[in-house]
């Protein structure tokens, strides 16, 4: 049993999970490289690994900030990420979108580093639906909070009822309201399931392809390794999609008139207009 498998078993068997699945998952991990769902402590360890890597990267980048020109590689990388996220925030939300950059950067770094961790130790917080749902709840909850701050509590919920219709159309308004509430709730599912499906599914795909080698008499050949480039791309794309959707949700609820005009200007110049 190699070190990686032992580590995965450790993550899974930290505490008793639903129906004693940890032991089963742990045993399964001994046969397959892909980790089972981690326990509470296992997830905390994985999150700690992700955030330690993130803090190490940020601390290293911070060390290069005292110069007029950023020469440190980590600082330059972080600057590029900042410029990218800033472009995303300002392009989609508008000029006031800059205040959401820190949150978007934390999301981006967490998901990206989490996905990278999944490539290296075959276990990641992002392959756990509970973790992804927690992130989605924070994102959607923050969007609702910003919506209420921008439009007022009543204004924010009135927004769910759609356009103002005549009195006779109250059932339609009610129906729109319910659909919008369901839609808002589904944003959590959309954000969490997409990430979970891609990362967990990617791991399962690797596991299945690795078993192919044994079936065709070449057990030493891990076909799953050929998926590495596309999994690497997935790491970036999933982080991007999460931040992109977060920005779009924010732009929908923090609608500003001046941004509309700005958006028209963007359209006139052939640039991407904010998605209102």
């Amino acid at each position, binding site marked *: 049993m190699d070190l990686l498998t032992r580590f995965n078993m450790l993550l899974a068997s930290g*505490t*008793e*999970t*639903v*129906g004693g699945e940890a032991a089963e998952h742990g045993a399964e991990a001994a046969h397959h490289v892909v980790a089972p*769902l981690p*326990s*509470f402590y296992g*997830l*905390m360890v994985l*999150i700690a690994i992700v*955030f330690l890597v*993130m*803090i190490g990267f*940020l*601390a290293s*980048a*911070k060390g290069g*900030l*005292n110069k*007029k*020109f*950023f020469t440190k590689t980590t600082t330059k990388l*972080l*600057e590029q990420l*900042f410029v990218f996220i800033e472009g995303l925030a300002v392009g989609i939300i508008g*000029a*006031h979108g*800059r*205040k959401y*950059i*820190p*949150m978007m*950067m*934390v999301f981006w770094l*967490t998901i990206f580093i989490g996905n990278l961790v999944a490539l290296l130790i075959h276990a990641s*917080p992002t392959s*756990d*639906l*509970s*973790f992804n*749902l*927690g*992130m989605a*709840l*924070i994102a959607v909850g923050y969007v609702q909070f910003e919506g209420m701050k921008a439009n007022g509590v009543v204004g924010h919920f009135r927004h769910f009822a759609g356009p103002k219709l005549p009195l006779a159309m109250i059932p339609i308004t009610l129906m729109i309201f319910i659909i919008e509430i369901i839609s808002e709730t589904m944003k959590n599912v959309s954000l969490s399931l997409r990430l979970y499906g891609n990362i967990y599914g990617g791991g399962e795909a690797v596991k299945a392809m690795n078993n192919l080698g044994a079936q065709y008499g070449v057990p030493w050949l891990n076909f799953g390794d050929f998926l590495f480039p596309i999994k690497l791309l997935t790491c970036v794309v999933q982080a991007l999609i999460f931040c992109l959707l977060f920005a779009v949700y924010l732009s929908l609820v923090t609608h500003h008139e001046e941004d509309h005009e700005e958006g028209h200007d963007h359209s006139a110049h052939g640039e991407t207009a904010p998605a209102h």
Partner: protein
Amino acid sequence: MSQETAIKKTGSGALVGSVLLGAAFIAIGWFITANGVTTNTEHSIQEAVGIHIEFGKLLGTIGIFVAMFKVADVFFLTPLFEAIHGRTSELENTFSEAENLRAEMTQLKADYEKRITETENSAREQIQAQIKEAQDLKKELMADAQRKAEEYKTQAMSEIDTEKRKTLTDLRLHVTTLSLQATEKLLSENVDNDRNRKIIDDFLATVEVKN
């Protein structure tokens, strides 16, 4: 809205509050997991929709993010934003100064070109004036010379005329004397000298002298 106002600084109170709130979420998550508070609900959800969600992990994740947002913001992201914005502002100022200097240089260049043009025009005017003055002087000198030449010529003509008249007078006197001498010898008699001289002068006055 400026970038400086767009990204607000997080105070230490908010940081401590976030960390405490995050810790509380994590503690609740741990408590739920450790005591199996939501196990039945989790089972129900899994049986209903086939998705395994653990509320303990969920709350733990939320707690970690609540704390991490502020920690990352205060210790790393805000300094990064400030550094980037500071550098951007500095670059903008440098570019602005360079632009101002360029405008100033352009203005100076235009001024110098204008001054050069003015100097050239002035020099040209001065040269033209000097040429004109020289030409006027030349004309004046030529006129003066001409006038003097005319004067000399007139004076010479006058002197010539005077000399001619004097010569003619001498010649007339000499002819008169010779005539008188000849007449005296011819007539061999004493004639009144003054009366004869008058007769001869009258005669000679009627005679036109040919040059």
